[in-house]
């Protein structure tokens, strides 16, 4: 009997081994990531304070979202984040081109330029909120020289606060894109650059027709991490304005947290409904990323 099961194991070892190797990781991932996604879908159909009895309300949470002014503001802010955050990609490319030289000490310069990415967003948020302090902050002093006066400080003014936070977020994100492009530039084929030079390509034309096509993989990853980063923005908002002034800096991720888990009430169902909306926005991008990866995977099949 023991012998039989042994031979069975041997015969099927190419199926059983990967299964055993996958099992612990998959169990963990399923319990903490995959299943909770579906649970959230379910919770979004209930009115629930997280402790007592949950009441089924159907789609009423979503109906409420449609008329919720704060939700609308959050959604718009997400769009702003998404569009402006993409500036990190050209900015990162620009700095990478600036630093892609071999002078003494340039390695140290590269690491120091990358520095903001390593610091936690909490600290970045604090640093920038002091930078933006009304009257005494460095930003206010410098903009004062230029004759610009932001009423109530950048973060105290509902018209500027979101942009101030996005600028703070762009700082580490640009650093990330820069490092992606620096690594990419390293791998640019020198022969093609030479050939381009012989054909008389210089500056912008060279960048556009010879260099950028070779940087495609770096650009792809830069897009992925920047879009995900923009939609995940939470830390900076929580630290710098806590959603204020007058709720003008909320985004979906922050608004969801506020609704579900703060003094503004423990409305788990309503919060989950917001999360579901955010999930579908994200899913649109995730599907695109996976599709491009799938194409590469098919092409690379051996």
């Amino acid at each position: 009997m023991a012998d039989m099961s042994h031979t069975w194991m041997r015969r099927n070892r190419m199926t059983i081994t990967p299964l055993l190797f996958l099992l612990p990781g998959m169990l963990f991932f399923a319990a903490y990531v995959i299943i909770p996604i579906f649970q959230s879908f379910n919770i979004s159909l209930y009115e629930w304070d997280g402790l007592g009895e949950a009441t089924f309300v159907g789609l009423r949470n979503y109906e409420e979202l449609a008329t919720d002014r704060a939700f609308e503001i959050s959604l718009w802010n997400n769009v702003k984040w998404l569009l402006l955050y993409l500036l990190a990609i050209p900015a990162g490319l620009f700095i990478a081109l600036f630093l892609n030289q071999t002078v003494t000490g340039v390695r140290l310069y590269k690491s120091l330029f990358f520095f903001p990415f390593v610091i936690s967003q909490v600290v970045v948020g604090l640093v920038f909120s002091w930078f933006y302090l009304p009257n005494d902050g460095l930003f206010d002093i410098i903009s004062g020289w230029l004759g610009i006066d932001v009423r109530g400080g950048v973060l105290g003014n509902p018209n500027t606060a979101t942009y101030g936070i996005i600028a703070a977020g762009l700082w580490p994100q640009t650093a990330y894109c820069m490092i992606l492009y620096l690594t990419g530039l390293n791998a640019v084929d020198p022969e093609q650059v030479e050939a381009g030079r012989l054909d008389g390509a210089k500056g912008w034309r060279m960048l556009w027709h010879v260099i950028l096509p070779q940087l495609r993989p770096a650009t792809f990853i830069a897009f992925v991490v920047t879009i995900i980063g923009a939609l995940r923005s939470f830390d900076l908002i929580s630290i710098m304005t806590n959603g204020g002034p007058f709720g003008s800096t909320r985004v979906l991720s922050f608004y969801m947290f506020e609704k579900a888990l703060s003094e503004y009430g423990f409305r788990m169902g309503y919060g989950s409904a917001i999360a579901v909306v955010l999930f579908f926005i994200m899913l649109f991008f995730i599907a695109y990323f996976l599709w491009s990866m799938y194409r590469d995977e098919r092409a690379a099949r051996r």
Partner: protein
Amino acid sequence: MFPTPIQKQSRTAQLTYQSLLPLALIMWLLPLLAVMLFSIRPLADFTNGNYWGVPSSFEFFNNYGRVFFESDMPRYLWNSLLITVPTVIGAVALSCMTGFALGIYRFRGNLLIFFMFIAGNFVPFQILMVPVRDLTVSAGLYDTKLGLVLFHIAFQTGFCTLFMRNFIRALPYELIEAARVEGVAEWRIFWFVVLPLMRPAIAALSVLIFTFIWNDYFWAVVLTQGPDAQPVTAGITSFNSQFVAQYHLMSAGSIVAAIPPVAMFFLMQRHFIAGLTLGAVK
């Protein structure tokens, strides 16, 4: 090389470049330099409105000393370490295995499982928040380091699997086939053939996950609440309410909180960057 090496350009261009470099760096790090300046000032400077002038006295030891001896900061730092290190070990261990399974074997659903890991890694945290918090509370792990560690391990396994699987795919497959011809058992192939080759990937992931987890704020707020379990990112907000408007101490505290991942980065730079580019950009 692009752009044209500066050495091939005129002398003036070279000089301009050399002087532009430090200038650009100072501009880039200006907000950070400001905080460093804050952290060595005495309190009197802020009350006198001397935010940006020369500090009236040098209070480096005094300010940082108070961060370490008069606040919960050391506890938060210790919590961060006790959360970060087990997470790194757990996530890397699990993903070595999943990466091996997905990178070496061909079976139905291989790509599907792989894509599930990637997709899960990109989802917004908020869609997980309520159920994960619920799960943690009902397991009696709310406001414990273990509760946070378990979640982090699970979530980071997604990203780590992506990285490990692609790394293993790039290894020479002949090695594994040769071992199989020799009749080496599959688990021994994993342990003696593949694992030693994965060292660079393990190093890269460890540094990267260390930084990610150290810097996590959202889950720290969702799953913990007091100085018993809170890591430094969440602790710094209570630190700041302890020292409201005392910018010299708040900035010293922020710098202390930021140092470990920074040190990690400078020590392991090459690995760190290899990890960040997801191994896709060589």
